């Protein structure tokens, strides 16, 4: 079982991101679970969302404390939230940032593998909005190989209808542009 924690700000779509990843995994025939950090919605405040993916039925119904993958949708969170909290020693951090992966890794003081992409820039260019949730999924899939790249298409189409194509493009660009360092 792979456990993923998403960090975002209220309104940025961290929950949607976790949900789409779970839906893609279920679409592949896997088992998956996605859920928000339950509570009132708080626009702009740091929020987390969770996703589990497994080949076996998932029995656990509790938050994720020791994730295999951490996804950060907003670079400003890297300074104010301990995004690496509980991350497994062989876990990965995937984040948006304008900085190089080396610089981000150094600032986080971690030894883990890290994947970095400027998702904000891609989202602005492709979607016209600084909403990085679908873009960052391209980065997650590239860094983790959790699901097949094309499995994201059906959930994107169902969730976004006619604007699905743009989101698929943003996803694809992040997949190509993500830089991963050990």
């Amino acid at each position, binding site marked *: 079982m792979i456990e993923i924690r998403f960090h975002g700000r209220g309104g940025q779509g961290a929950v949607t991101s976790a*949900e789409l990843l*779970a839906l893609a995994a279920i679409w592949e025939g896997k088992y998956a679970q996605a*859920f928000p950090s*339950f*509570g009132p919605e708080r626009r702009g405040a740091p929020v987390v969302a969770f996703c589990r993916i497994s080949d076996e039925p998932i*029995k*656990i*119904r509790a*938050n994720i404390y020791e994730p295999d993958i951490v996804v950060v949708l907003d670079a400003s969170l890297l300074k104010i939230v301990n995004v690496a909290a509980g991350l497994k020693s062989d876990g990965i951090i995937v984040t948006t940032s304008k900085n190089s992966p080396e610089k981000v890794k150094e600032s986080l003081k971690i030894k883990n593998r890290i994947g970095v992409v400027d998702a904000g820039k891609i989202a602005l260019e492709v979607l016209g909005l600084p909403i990085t949730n679908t873009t960052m999924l391209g980065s997650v899939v590239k860094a983790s190989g959790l699901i097949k790249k094309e499995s994201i298409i059906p959930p994107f189409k169902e969730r976004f209808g006619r604007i699905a194509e743009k989101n698929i493009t943003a996803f694809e660009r992040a997949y190509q542009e993500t830089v991963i360092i050990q």
Partner: protein
Amino acid sequence: MAKRVGMEVSIAAAEAVRQANVDVISAYPITPQTHIVEHLSEIVANGEMDAEFFCVESEHSALSVCVGAAATGARAFTCTSSQGLALMSEITYIASGLRLPMLMIISNRTLSAPLSIWNDHSDTMSIRDCGWIQFFVENGQEVYDHVFVSYRLGEDRNVLFPVIINMDGFILSHVIEPIELIEQEKIDQFLPPYQPLHRLHPDRPVTMGAFALPGIFAEAKKAQEEALRSSMPKITETWKAFGDMTGRYYHPVETHKAEDADTLLVTMGSCSETASVAVDKMRQEGRSVGLVKIRLWRPFPFDELKKAALHAKQLVVIDRAISVGACGPVASEVKAALYGYDQRPSVYNFVAGISGRDVTPSDFIKMVDKAEIEIEEGNKEGYEIYGVRE
């Protein structure tokens, strides 16, 4: 072929209501039940479901609409949470006293005060004695499945009771997971249209909800009590028929590695799944621990619980509600079920996970550790609220 799709559990619940050909829906939105009502109101408005959706000004009215609708012979549905259920409570006793089948899904949430929107069982425990058949479910598939089970069971002429499905708010209601949707033809076969025994109709007048003098009230209440108790064979029969159709069999009390266990965790609702993960871990370490899960809360399955638990040395009963001034309501029932036996396990009761506080597999292991030590030291009937900072 049944279709396996990823969806939010609340949406799966609403889809089941659509597939169950419900005639009347009346509900008032309240967190965390909201997604069920929103989805139903949308599919009714889109003409995807031939039902009347009654917008009401309160939960009291929502359940009153369902009572009126069921009295005319309609298949009725409502759902609520927490304060909404508290506001309905007056009418819950009327629905069961009039023997009107209907379904209510409770997306379980804490009762105020302090004000909290998170999950526990205090809402449903406040109407424990209302005379409905009451189920608890562990996951989204079970919510979906029990919608069909509930209508077929409640509408059976040997039953005629309203039914509650308790699903944990947020922990289930807001989770996306795989759900196997059943083909409509199969559902139509399993759940034929409701044929009421009596109904309100101008051409054939009947009285429902008449005044009862002391000379007849106790007899009426005894009839209701006996009818609810004797619905047990129909409950298991309905589950059997559902299992034969889907391969998913349900039982009043279910177990996991319990047969030879010295210590048994006893749980109800979604925490049963997490507890099973803890049991597997403890088994790997060679510990003699198993799990007993209560699915049917009313009528309480005294015999089934005894069969599942009497052999153990100790039970660690987890309650997600407090009967303030007593103990956890599940523990009270478990103790009552076992009291008549000389050789019976000790019962250690934890209240855990109230107001949505996370209960992890390691929390269950810690509770088992603590209970085993306390019982060893002679505190055989302990009761505590787990994990409270003091």
